């Protein structure tokens, strides 16, 4: 039972990029179909507050609160004019069909031109103790707050190397949470060196970042930079973060939760299944889909937002608009050339900014080499760093990550390689003396998210009678 939606443009993802693309298409007289996994629009970059958190809107966002509310109302008005399907997971793509699950049932859709705006998630590198209860990613800490009106703990340490570190800590602070410390693994020197580049391209964002740090300091929250994280320790739950800083080899901070992460990792699995090819980017230490200047990745395929290039919400909106305009142009519509040039220039500036940020907030990948054998690399399949090292040492011939995955099961679990994939590549490159590019990347496979057997039941397919 295939639904033929091929006469409308289709957007996967209702985050900043998807919504921006929808707005352009809708204004051009189309009725785009928007499929979004989440029950509410906004994605992660512009995640909406749940009703339980509405009362905290002004506390959390300050002067930006009104602007955000207005934006959300505009988005709702836009979505009312589109074929917007929330709670719809796109788990596979093949030719001109996409596979979808909605209300626990599988559906197949014949699609026309498609824009994938699937966003990104935290980039995680393992550290001893990272599988202890109470340890979350930075994104997860934000979701807990915004969606579930919960703090991840009563004394939270924010650790890692990302501007999101400060953003999340400030949000917790403003919401009344207790931030035990911010442990930034990036050295101040690296950030200072990158500052001119960042200032040139995104002065407001740079200032926002600095003012967040100031806000945290004013609240008396310890901020340490140039930290080397040693491990998370605890019994039933994490209760201490151990780290090294300068000459202090045994620093520790007590906590009952940790939010950590090292920047973002593009969610590009669907793009890969839809036919995009990939290039390696050393600044971001990951693979990104090949795109033209407007985000075109294939004959009827465009990609926009963090799922294609790490860029943040503002860049995502630009990219979404450009992809939509390119889609319209491909169908022979008249498109505003000046606007396109302006958007391209703006997007290029954002990408430049993010590149400078990526260099400034480089993850401590050298530390992976020093991980003890007992540390968990693949938490879903419980594969240790030692097992992976042993397997790599036994291999004959060139070693690439899919091979290591096949032998060790690393990446075969529930998270489908999202949490361990990049770490596996770093470890494999280090152990074999190859470049990060040479060891490749984990191949995407459908379903790109786990799907229940129940969803395929024939009765459930709506095929009855």
């Amino acid at each position: 039972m295939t639904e033929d939606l091929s006469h409308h443009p289709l957007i996967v993802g209702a985050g900043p990029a998807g919504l921006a693309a929808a707005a352009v298409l809708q204004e051009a007289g189309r009725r785009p179909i928007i499929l979004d996994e989440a029950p509410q629009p906004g994605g992660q970059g512009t995640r909406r507050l749940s009703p339980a958190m509405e009362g905290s809107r002004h506390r959390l966002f300050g002067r930006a609160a009104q602007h955000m509310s207005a934006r959300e109302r505009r988005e709702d008005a836009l979505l009312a004019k589109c074929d917007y399907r929330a709670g719809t997971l796109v788990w596979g793509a093949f030719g001109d069909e996409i596979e979808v699950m909605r209300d626990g049932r599988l559906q197949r859709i014949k699609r026309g031109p498609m824009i994938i705006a699937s966003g990104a998630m935290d980039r995680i590198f393992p550290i001893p103790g990272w599988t202890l209860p109470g340890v979350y990613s930075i994104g997860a800490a934000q979701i807990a707050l915004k969606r579930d009106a919960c703090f991840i703990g009563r004394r939270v340490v924010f650790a890692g190397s990302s501007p999101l570190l400060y953003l999340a800590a400030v949000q917790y602070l403003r919401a009344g949470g207790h931030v035990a410390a911010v442990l930034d693994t990036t050295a101040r020197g690296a950030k200072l060196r990158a500052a001119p580049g960042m200032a040139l391209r995104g002065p407001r964002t740079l200032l926002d970042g600095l003012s967040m740090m100031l806000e945290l300091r004013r609240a008396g929250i310890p901020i340490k930079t140039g930290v080397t994280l040693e491990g998370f320790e605890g019994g039933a739950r994490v209760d201490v973060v151990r780290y090294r800083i300068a000459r202090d080899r045994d620093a520790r901070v007590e906590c009952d939760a940790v939010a950590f992460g090292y920047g973002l990792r593009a969610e590009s699995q669907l793009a890969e299944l839809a036919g995009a090819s990939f290039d390696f980017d050393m600044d971001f230490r990951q693979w990104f889909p090949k795109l033209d200047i407007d985000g075109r990745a294939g004959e009827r395929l465009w990609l926009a937002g963090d799922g294609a290039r790490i860029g943040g919400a503002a860049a995502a909106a630009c990219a979404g608009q450009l992809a939509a305009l390119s889609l319209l142009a491909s169908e022979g519509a008249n498109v505003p050339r000046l606007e396109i040039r302006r958007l391209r220039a703006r997007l290029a500036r954002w990408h430049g900014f993010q590149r400078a940020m990526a260099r400034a907030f480089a993850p401590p990948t050298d530390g992976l080499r020093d991980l003890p054998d007992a540390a968990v690399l693949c938490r879903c399949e419980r594969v240790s760093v030692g097992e992976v090292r042993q397997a790599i040492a036994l291999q004959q011939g060139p070693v690439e990550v899919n091979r290591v995955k096949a032998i060790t099961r690393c990446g075969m679990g529930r998270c489908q390689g999202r949490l361990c994939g990049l770490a596996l590549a770093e470890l494999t490159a280090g152990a074999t003396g190859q470049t990060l590019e040479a060891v490749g990347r984990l191949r995407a496979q459908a379903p790109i998210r786990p799907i229940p057997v129940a969803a395929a039941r024939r009765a459930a397919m709506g095929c009855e009678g």
Partner: protein
Amino acid sequence: MKEPQTFDAIIVGAGLFGCATGFFLAQRGLATAILERGHVGAQSSGANFGSLRLQGRAERQFPLSLRAQALWEDFENWVGESCEYDRTGHIYFARNDEGRAKLLEYVKAGRSAGLEIEILEGEALRRRLPFLTEDAHIACHSPRSATANPRLATPAICRAFLRQGGTLRSGCEVVRVAHRDGCFRVETAGGETLSAPFLVNAAGAWAGEIAGRFGEPVPLFGAGPPQFVTEPLPYRLRPVLQSIEGDLILRQIPRGNFIFAGYPRTRANAGGKFTFVPPRKVETGLQVIAETMPGLISAQVIRNWSGVEGYLPDMLPVIGPSSTTEGLFHAFGASGGGFQIGPAVGENLASLIVGDRPVCPLEDYAIGRFSGGAETSDRIAREFDT
């Protein structure tokens, strides 16, 4: 012109057949080289279901199958490493009268070959397999059947081959093979030349090229069944479960994940390098599970994959000497059943090559059977995309 590197035997393909043959030749003191254009055991040998099934074979296949099982049971001793061999047992189940008849035939053939097979029906069946659909009214259990991890087995045998003095060239594609004056000359893409009086064509789904080159073409094609795995669930199912109708094979590994393979098989892609699983087949696979294993209805499928296996119309491999060229031997086309027989194929082919009588008769697997037009198995229509 560079002098070729000389060996006693050259094997093309480092799959299970190639590595096993290589091991037994090296063990007998022959200087043996295996040439592999990709990675050791990466295709069918590494992606198959891992079932070491004894029942459900034609009577003639039992000698090879039983000898192979003895080798699997002793794997750690002759290979020196584990392949996660586990004597899990194997159960066929039937859901209709036609299936029942076929199942009983399999029981008869297995018992004639000396296999212990238990029939399960009624209450006994419900008690043993409570989560199986009630449509299944009869089953047969072979306790000596087992499972192993295909991703580990072939690389382990290859390492044992190397320890016996064998030579491996991986990432090494064969571009030309010639035969002159009782010697095979093999040229690789990297510009190397190797020569030997014996050549073994163990090139899996790609073995048709060499066979054709030596004037004995075979109707070989590449295909693979889509396979799926669920998240880990409490460990409950030890034996491998297989429907006699051929639409499902399922097992649970001790870690708790259920692995199942579905049909129809998909043909390999144009270059024959891999078999892509169209998402449609994910849906079909899940449907079959939902129908046969209602107890797994809430399980989440987290991954799928396929591999490229070599298939022949009668669903039997080619094993044995060339019908045209002295010194050339073939071992390919196991049509989805190569994993279990692999070690015995290697052992018997090695015997044949050095001039000994193989323990298991190999006449049924002669390449010459295709010149007259071999039978087409009824499974071809049922188990493959047209």
